[in-house]
């Protein structure tokens, strides 16, 4: 008799998801599906709104990465205005975007995943939280709290508040940076760098203990996609998109981000509200690709800052080809935090960053605009169409987490096949199935920030729906 195991909800993610594992009669996992059970509807209810409201409306999609939406949306609005924003405005937006990346990566690594990494996948669930880490590993917990606060403080200093800031607007930003604020941010940089380097030190030293997880945590060939600058180096604010295959071959070198629809298709599956983007030339599911930290570090020529480049070389030196295990998203996240911190320092150390001309003004000049930026979790695309009055008639948002959807599903299947057998459900086994999803750091509902202890129910059901066995954690 075949049976189904359901993990609902999946814990320590941003949002609510459910995993279903289908077992065959021998108790072997035959299929795995990751269900995103919330419907947000932003693309629909934005219709009819003035385009210039879109940055603030779409920032509400996410309480963790509102800046990413703010930036991508502002860029789409720039395109509708048909303006080239002042260079200093682009640089300041870039700093804001990098600060967002730091605080989000800190949340993912320290708050959500460090309990698995420090206490082990088999630790009791009541111990797997940042609160417990604060007591059991206070120095690491302190670095995590400090780094998240570091990113949030930069956002707050520049944009006035940590969550749902304004400041970035169509045409640029609405206020130049003061020297006092710049100095305040620069003053925080050395401590942040030191904290990230300490974290990299212990993480790298512990990698060997996770060799089993590295082997089966979404470790398979896919394409990788991410943004690069005009030198082919890692870029987060503005640039072309590059796609590589699992051998490291560049199969699309400089795709114009605004023409994403030419090369990205979106498939749908009946069991989830999240779409399945794919690389069109290879079809679905053959065109499955991954985005985010691992993809960015796999496909870029290097980072462009001294300390991050040292770490990048060591990271990429682990394999002559792209690193395929999604477990390495954790490692990549730390390197990106270092890169972002150094980049913020470099941008703010240029005296021109205090220039007062930070906004270009215009009215509607294009009836369509696309804005693309790298969010913490990967490439984020905002695409709007407007009427002659600037009212939104159509919107399409391709969210970073969505790009990874197909790979996450395959990763769950791979991990479940390795760890789940028969009707014996061990806590550590289930945590590993959840943990493979956590490596991608998916942001499912975005605005709901839930972590730590949430109810987890696992059900084994017969094909006719009869409950065979249930396990619940409250």
């Amino acid at each position, binding site marked *: 008799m075949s049976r189904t195991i359901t993990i609902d909800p999946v814990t320590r993610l941003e949002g609510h998801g459910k995993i279903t594992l289908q077992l065959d009669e021998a108790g072997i996992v035959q299929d795995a599906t990751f269900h995103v059970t919330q419907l947000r509807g932003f693309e629909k209810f934005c219709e009819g709104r003035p385009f210039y409201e879109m940055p603030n409306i779409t920032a509400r999609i996410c*309480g963790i990465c509102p800046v990413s939406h703010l930036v991508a949306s502002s860029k789409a609005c720039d395109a509708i205005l048909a303006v080239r924003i002042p260079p200093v405005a682009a640089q300041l937006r870039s700093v804001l975007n990098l600060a967002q990346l730091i605080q989000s990566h800190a949340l993912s690594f320290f*708050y959500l995943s460090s309990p698995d990494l420090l206490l082990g996948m088999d630790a009791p669930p*009541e111990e797997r*939280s*940042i*609160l417990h880490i*604060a*007591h059991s590993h*206070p120095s690491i*917990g*302190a*670095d*995590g*709290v*400090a*780094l*998240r*606060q*570091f990113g*949030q*403080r930069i956002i*707050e200093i520049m944009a*006035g*508040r*940590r*969550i*749902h800031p304004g400041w970035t607007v169509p045409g640029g930003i609405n206020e130049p940076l003061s020297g006092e604020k710049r100095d*305040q941010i620069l*003053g*925080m940089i050395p*401590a*942040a760098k*030191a*904290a990230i380097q300490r974290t990299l030190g212990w993480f790298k030293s512990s990698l060997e203990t996770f060799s089993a997880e590295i082997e089966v945590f979404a470790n398979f060939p896919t394409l990788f996609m991410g943004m690069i600058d005009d030198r082919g180096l890692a870029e987060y604010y503005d640039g072309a998109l590059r796609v590589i295959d699992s051998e490291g071959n560049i199969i699309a070198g400089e795709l114009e981000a605004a023409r994403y629809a030419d090369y990205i298709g979106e498939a749908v599956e009946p069991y989830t509200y999240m779409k399945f983007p794919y690389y069109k030339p290879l079809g679905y599911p053959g065109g499955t690709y991954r985005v985010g930290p691992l993809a960015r570090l796999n496909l870029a020529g290097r980072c462009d800052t001294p300390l991050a480049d040292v770490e990048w070389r060591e990271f990429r030196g682990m394999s002559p080809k792209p690193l395929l295990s999604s477990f390495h998203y954790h490692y990549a996240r730390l390197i990106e935090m270092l890169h972002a911190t150094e980049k913020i320092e470099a941008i703010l150390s240029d005296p021109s960053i205090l220039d007062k001309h930070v906004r270009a003004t215009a009215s509607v000049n294009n009836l369509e605009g696309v804005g693309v930026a790298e969010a913490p979790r990967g490439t984020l695309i905002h695409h709007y169409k407007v009427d002659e009055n600037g009212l939104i008639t159509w919107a399409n948002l391709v969210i970073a987490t969505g790009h990874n959807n197909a790979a996450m599903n395959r990763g769950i299947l791979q991990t479940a096949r390795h760890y789940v057998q028969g009707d014996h459900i061990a806590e550590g086994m289930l945590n590993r199935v959840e943990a493979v999803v956590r490596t991608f750091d998916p942001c499912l509902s975005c605005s709901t*920030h*839930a*972590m*730590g*202890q*949430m109810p987890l129910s696992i059900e084994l059901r017969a094909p006719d729906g009869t409950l065979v066995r249930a396990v619940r954690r409250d």
Partner: protein
Amino acid sequence: MHIIKTKASSPPAPAGEPVRQPALLLACGNTLRQDDGVGLRIAEAAERQFPPSQLRIVAGQQFTPEMAADLASTELAIFVDASVTDDPGAIRVVPVKPRQDVRGTHGLDPGALLAMTRSLSGRMPAYAFALTIGAGRFGYSEEISGPLRHAVPRALRLVNNLVAAFSPKE
């Protein structure tokens, strides 16, 4: 409405030795859900009344772990939040003690935050109080209900009293 806003002349560094601040008001709530936002209304009013050198204000939708870094650098902490168990407009001030018996962080409370602060930095505020205001309406609106509007100035006076009584003297 600023969901998260701090007001400080010298914010703490992300790591290293924090600088002691005189007093800290931590407020949480959701201004889009009527009375749930009363803590943030009080934070706004306090921001207008107190200079940053006297009271630092940190406000958000919920109490979060990174607030431990703020708590590590103050002698007096006042947690402000709505209460669903008290009558609308009723104000309660109670001392807060650190508590470690918290299983998760989804509903991080002041006691857990204090314990976390102590573990992470080896220090915590000498005095900590929870100031709660009974709330009765949680619909979709940015307006708090009548009893809570009247409670805001009373709560502000209590904040003033706590700052005057427990802040370190110059």
